[in-house]
């Protein structure tokens, strides 16, 4: 195995049937996609729900789904969707404009009868309340979204999981229990959820598209990465999530297994708290950048599941500035810069590492160990500090750290979703998304302008410039972009990795 799979053509016989077992690291929290934030929950929701629009498999472009077409008003302040007819929810009720209105209104209208089932977290994350004014059913099969301001990524937002269309009848019937018994129009029907063990789905026979091949889909929980790999080797499961970087080579060598890989839309970084000494000094930040040998980190921690990062944006993102040159590994230079900054003998500081594995950083504490050793070489004595995850986020938000690792996964494929949230001056106020507390007027001005410009070329130019400023000022030490790897049996066909981290099982079939 080992080679990348060529996209297989849809349709045709011999693809139907079979059960696919997908092994993942944790259980879903809930299956109502608008309530949840974690990838594991979305894995389950994606199978059950359709959106008005969806991402093209493996891309960030958007294509029609439950909406057959749409028109954007000239003032960019409303979008009208023409809905697919004859689609039924799994509970047998019809999919109409009312369902669309229901799905969205419950997330922002405080007097909606089901608003209380929230919190509707992603709606908040994507700042949708400041974008969407109203959702209006024009007729049974036409829905209009009225916007508060022009928002270029709005359509992409609707392809995100939280915008999956739910069955109003089911929500009314199940109430709070809906999140355990999701009902949508999606390719698979929910059958059973065995907590911390497996979620079982079966094919939605009346699906509006004809590329649903699997009879059953089982999402199984195997917390330990190595155990997942062993289970795959033994054929107990068909596809596994988050393989251990250490096992990737063995997987690639295994003739019965193939590994799909794609760069993820994320970045893992080490932020210097520029509001604290000595990190307020640019020379120090640069010195620390010179001090780290990213290759070693990649080798030891990411293996072939990561690429070194030089920019705050992932390379798959448009406007990624590839001309920028990373600080090379040069301890001598680092020492010299430190001396120049007034620290010829280095200094003592803390190096914070997340306690948990994240998509952008599989093992922060191990990276911290490596960094600690490398910083030591230039005389910087870094104590590794780790808190329980919630505390960690709290404390970094409050800028209590000296240097802290963190990262970001893009939601909708827009650079603004990285740069504004993570590096703008307004985001540097606690609770800070900008945990470098970096308030650079020039940088903020550039991305503010980009945010308000609709012209893609101009935006690209602005973002590229911003990245130059970033590199020079070095508020972060960008570490890596992870490469998503999905090992599976050779017989599994039609599987695509989505940049946004979705796991989609429509179109997947098993070779007999």
């Amino acid at each position, binding site marked *: 195995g080992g080679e990348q799979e060529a996209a297989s053509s849809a349709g045709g016989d011999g693809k139907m049937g079979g059960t696919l077992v997908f092994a993942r690291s944790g259980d879903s929290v*809930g299956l109502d996609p608008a309530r949840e*934030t974690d990838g594991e929950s979305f894995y389950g929701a994606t199978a059950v729900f359709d959106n008005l629009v969806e991402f093209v498999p493996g891309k960030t472009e958007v294509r029609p789904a439950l909406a057959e077409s749409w028109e954007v008003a000239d003032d960019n302040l409303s979008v009208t969707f023409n809905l697919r007819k004859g689609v039924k929810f799994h509970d047998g009720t019809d999919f109409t404009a009312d369902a669309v209105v229901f799905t969205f209104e419950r997330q922002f209208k405080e007097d909606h009868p089901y608003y209380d089932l929230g919190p509707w977290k992603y709606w908040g*994350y994507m700042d949708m309340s400041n974008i969407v004014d109203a959702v209006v059913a024009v007729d049974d099969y036409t829905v209009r979204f009225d916007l508060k301001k022009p928002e270029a990524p709005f359509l992409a937002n609707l392809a995100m999981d939280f915008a999956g269309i739910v069955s109003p009848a089911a929500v009314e019937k199940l109430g709070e229990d809906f999140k355990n018994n999701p009902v949508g129009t999606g390719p698979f029907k929910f059958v059973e959820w065995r907590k911390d063990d497996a979620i079982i789905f079966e094919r939605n026979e009346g699906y509006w598209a004809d590329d649903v091949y699997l009879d*059953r889909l089982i999402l199984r929980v195997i917390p330990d990465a190595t*155990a997942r790999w062993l289970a795959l080797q033994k054929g107990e499961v068909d596809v596994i999530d988050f393989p251990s970087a250490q096992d990737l080579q063995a997987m690639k060598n295994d003739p019965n297994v193939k590994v799909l890989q794609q760069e993820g839309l994320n970045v893992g970084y080490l932020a210097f708290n520029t509001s604290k000494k000595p990190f307020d000094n640019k020379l120090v930040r640069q010195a620390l950048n010179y001090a780290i040998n990213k290759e070693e980190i990649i080798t030891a921690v990411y293996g072939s599941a990561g690429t070194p990062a030089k920019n705050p944006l992932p390379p798959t993102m448009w406007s990624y500035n590839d001309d920028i040159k990373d600080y090379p590994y040069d301890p001598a230079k680092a020492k010299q810069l430190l001396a120049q900054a007034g620290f010829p003998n280095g200094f003592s500081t803390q190096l914070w590492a997340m306690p948990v594995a994240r998509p952008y950083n599989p093992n922060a504490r191990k990276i911290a160990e490596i960094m600690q050793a490398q910083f030591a070489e230039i005389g910087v004595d870094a104590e590794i500090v780790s808190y329980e995850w919630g505390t960690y*986020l*709290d404390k970094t938000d409050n800028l209590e750290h000296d240097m802290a690792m963190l990262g970001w996964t893009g939601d909708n494929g827009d650079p603004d979703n990285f740069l504004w949230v993570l590096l703008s001056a307004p985001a540097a106020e606690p609770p800070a998304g900008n945990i470098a507390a970096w308030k650079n007027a020039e940088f903020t001005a550039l991305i503010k302008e980009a945010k308000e410009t609709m012209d893609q070329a101009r935006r690209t130019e602005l973002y590229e410039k911003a990245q130059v400023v970033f590199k020079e000022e070095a508020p972060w030490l960008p570490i890596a972009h992870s490469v998503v790897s999905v090992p599976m049996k050779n017989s599994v066909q039609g599987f695509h990795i989505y940049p946004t981290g979705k796991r989609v099982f429509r179109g997947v079939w098993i070779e007999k």
Partner: protein
Amino acid sequence: MGKYILKRLGLLIPTLLGVITLVFFMIALSPGDPARVMLGERASAEQLAKLRADMGLDRPLHEQYFSYLGRIAHLDLGKSITTGRPVVEEVLELFPATMELAFFAMLIASVAGIIIGVISATRRNTMVDYVSMVGALFGVSMPVFWLGLVLIMIFSVFFDLFPTGGRMNVRYYMDTITNFYLIDSLIAVFKTGDWHYLGSALKHLILPSVALGTIPLAIIARTTRSSMLEVLKQDYVKTARAAGIPERKVVYRYALKNALLPIITVIGIQFGLLLSGAILTETIFAWPGIGKWIYHSISARDYPAVQGGIIVISTVFVLINLLVDILYSVVNPKVRLK
């Protein structure tokens, strides 16, 4: 007897109250809050504040405590903060898995432990004795998580005898009624005549049970041995021998029944320990049990879940102790209750 049991059950309440109070304040004192954990990297300040208010986390601690007690009094364990599901529901789903595992582990440990212990005691200072006791010492010295990994490597990967984890081949869509898979699979066998379910359930149980049961097995073997040796020295054993009772009978009937007394206690204690000790085993063998769940709930600061889980485990623990005492009294006429 009934009165005694009632009295013991009555004692359960203050104990549990103590446990609840202890857990409540320890978690309240621990840094980090559940709202933060739930909302992750992207939370805004308003969102956090709102969620905290929703969860009642902004109220004074004593108020939270008493309202929690009030709900417990109504047998309402509340809802999990992370999943929003009633804690009772989650516990009912997960606890059987742990119970099943612990029970099976204990079964293996007790049967094997007692046999080994008796053999060692009767062949004291022979090779058999040395080997079993050194083996038992290795057993108690074993880091469980490490043992689990090693067992998987050997029996699952190398010899391909057992699955790597889980409770049952997920491709068998067995109806779960009790969530005790052995029972459920028996029902399935009954209904469909297909033995696959039971076979699969058993196969999945073995490795984790062995991993989990190793320490208790070793402890029981050692306890049995020393208890047997102690009993074999007693005057009444001498009496039995002096009365010409055959040695086999002296050992297996006269002595063993007496020797069982401390063993029963040990089995009870170990069973209780297994319930929580399963955390590591559950993680390694992908066993959907309550230990792992409580552990995750603790890290997520999911108060209601932690509380609920610990209340259930503690209750069962206390009940097992009661059961052990009752069993003890059945074997030991001295404390036999009228």
